[in-house]
């Protein structure tokens, strides 16, 4: 049977040790530097006349920032695959919500009343 039994079956909490996973300080610092640079980039690009590209740039920068925060600050690079999957699911669901809603609103045509 592929069932793992706890070493201590008498019940209640036990005390155990393991070594914590520690990220080097410099990783956090370069992430912060990258995030602040991206912030300056989004503020700067918003002032340029780029048309529709303004919004595309802004969203692309926000997605990049989010991936940085998740990968380094939220330790997703060390997380188990199941944890990573669950953390992505919320965003995927949101993309479906916005995508399907827009597919409605963007394809509506105004039909004038026949009278």
């Amino acid at each position, binding site marked *: 049977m592929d069932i*793992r039994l*706890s*070493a*201590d079956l008498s*019940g209640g*909490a*036990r*005390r*155990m*040790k*393991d*070594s*914590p*996973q*520690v*990220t080097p*300080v410099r990783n*956090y*610092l370069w*992430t*912060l530097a990258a*995030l*602040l640079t991206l*912030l300056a980039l*989004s*503020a700067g690009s*918003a*002032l*340029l*006349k*780029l048309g529709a590209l*303004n*919004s595309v740039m*802004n*969203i692309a*920068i*926000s997605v990049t*920032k*989010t991936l940085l*925060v998740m990968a*380094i*600050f*939220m330790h997703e690079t060390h*997380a*188990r695959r*199941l*944890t990573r999957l*669950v*953390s992505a*699911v*919320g*965003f995927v*669901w*949101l993309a479906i*919500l*916005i995508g399907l*809603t*827009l597919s409605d*609103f*963007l394809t509506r045509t105004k039909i004038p009343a026949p009278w």
Partner: protein
Amino acid sequence: MNSAEAEFRANTALLEEQFDEPAQQREAATLGMWVFLSTEILFFGVLFAGYTVMRVLHPLGFAIASRQTDMLLGTVETAVLLTSSSLIALGVRAVKLNQWRTATWLMAGTASLGLAFLVMHGFEYYKEYTEHLIPGINFSRHGPQAPAVELFFFLYYCITGFHSLHVAVGVILIAVLAVRVSHQVFGSQRYTTPELTALYWHLVDIVWIFVYPLIYLVGRAG
């Protein structure tokens, strides 16, 4: 409790009976936290979806409205939140290394930056009140785009209001955390609470990362 006792506590993982090892117990806690954070993503997500539809329908009105927000203050607020995220990440790292003093200062720093964010946002709200930009209560804009501007500000208060509420909750949680860290409640074997609180704080940061361009940066060019 003397400090030797505290140190022993912080350096011994308390394993609940359903888990085989501390790593498994921590992974379960992280997974559960992410399930909660996913509900948070969808909570803010509907507001963003509503924003997207209204912006598609009223692009000009949203550009006019966005130009009336305070871009400089919004940018500073974003920098403050990003910095606070790095501080709490460093704080959790310090807890894992039993550097309690450093961890306490980093957590206190995070909470202070959160508080600074709330104060700045308060100033923004006050400024908008004096400029008559509160839909339904104190709103005076005229012209063909006025209804769209009102819609933008309605969404603005919903999104930033709920976000500020989350920041306020985070500030309280992290302030309590700072006190507990200073009492050496957590340590190299007991850091699930700081780690999960940090995850919450990072998500609040991520929400703001999207609020910033959608609220402050529309129609800024030209």
